């Protein structure tokens, strides 16, 4: 399926490059709707891979790439359930999102996240599953999950450790703070910086360069350069589910959901 237009995202294949655009108001939150459409995207790999060199993931929303998991949907879905069903529900969701991100991480074509604005939590985890992050200078990155008594659940810590593996990772996680694109590039999280509003343009010119080279060699080299940390990813799901069982987490989620103030994204 070379083109797709869904409720939360769309993609279009052209001359060896897929552009996947997230477009789900208000903040490209990753919940069941976006997950289902990402699963459709992955299901289309079989048909897309032979003719694809690069996939660029970007956002059509004005001030952000993605604010992360849909916490409101998570809370409203989980709150009424008995504990056992709540936990099996969250595990099922995590296993599905991991399957999608693992497929993206291991895709034989090169993946580029073209990031502007807010790229937090699950949004950062989506970007981390890509080979290259190109960020405009107004982009900001964060793992705010500790504020809710959780860890990132979409593979963030294993991938961040794989790619950076240093004190910056611990600072980012333990403080829950946001960092700007320049800092993210300095530590190696972001590969290229772009001027404001220019991330997608630069991603396209980067993609055009990448398409020049042999696809078989590229796919083999990618597998060699970048391993998917499967064992750690599975342990992350287990740890997330253990933490999710704590009453403090549902209380923190409730507080987040009921906060109708204008500042939900500040620490």
């Amino acid at each position, binding site marked *: 399926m070379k083109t797709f237009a869904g409720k939360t995202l769309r993609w279009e294949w052209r001359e060896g490059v897929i552009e996947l655009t997230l477009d789900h108001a208000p903040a490209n939150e990753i919940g069941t709707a976006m997950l289902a459409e990402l699963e459709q995207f992955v299901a289309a790999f079989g048909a897309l891979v032979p003719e694809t060199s690069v996939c660029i993931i970007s956002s059509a929303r004005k001030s952000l790439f993605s604010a992360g998991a849909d916490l409101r949907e998570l809370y409203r879905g989980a709150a009424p359930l008995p504990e056992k069903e709540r936990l099996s529900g969250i595990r099922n969701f995590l296993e599905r999102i991991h399957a999608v991100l693992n497929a993206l991480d291991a895709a034989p074509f090169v993946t580029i996240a073209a990031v502007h604005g*807010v790229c937090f939590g699950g949004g950062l985890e989506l970007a981390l599953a890509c080979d290259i992050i190109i960020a405009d*200078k*107004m982009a900001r990155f964060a793992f705010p999950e500790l504020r809710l008594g959780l860890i990132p659940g979409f593979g963030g810590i294993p991938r961040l450790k794989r790619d950076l593996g240093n004190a910056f990772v611990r600072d980012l996680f333990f403080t829950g703070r946001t960092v700007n694109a320049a800092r993210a590039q300095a530590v190696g999280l972001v590969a290229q910086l772009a001027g404001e509003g220019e991330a997608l343009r630069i991603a396209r010119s980067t993609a055009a360069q990448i398409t020049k080279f042999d696809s078989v060699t590229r796919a083999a080299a990618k597998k060699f350069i970048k391993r998917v940390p499967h064992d750690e990813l599975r342990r992350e799901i287990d740890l997330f589910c253990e933490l999710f069982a704590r009453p403090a987490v549902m209380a923190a989620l409730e507080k987040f959901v009921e906060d109708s103030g204008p500042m939900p*994204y500040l*620490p």
Partner: protein
Amino acid sequence: MRTLEQTTQEVLDLAARHFQLPAGSLAPADDFFKKLGIDSLQTLEMLSRIENHFGIELPDYEVQGVSDFRTLAERIQSRL
């Protein structure tokens, strides 16, 4: 090195430009949330502008509870 007064003025100018207000319309003691009516996404955009302009990193937890331009400038000054 900039003085605190210079830093404060630059912050006021940055905010006025970013939010498209007339130059000189903001004062150091103004509460920027009340004066500008901004949400968290706009606050983060402003934080990026400040960091890019001054060439610093300003962790958001250092500006928690800060709501006036002068105190914000003091936080920035401590990173210069």
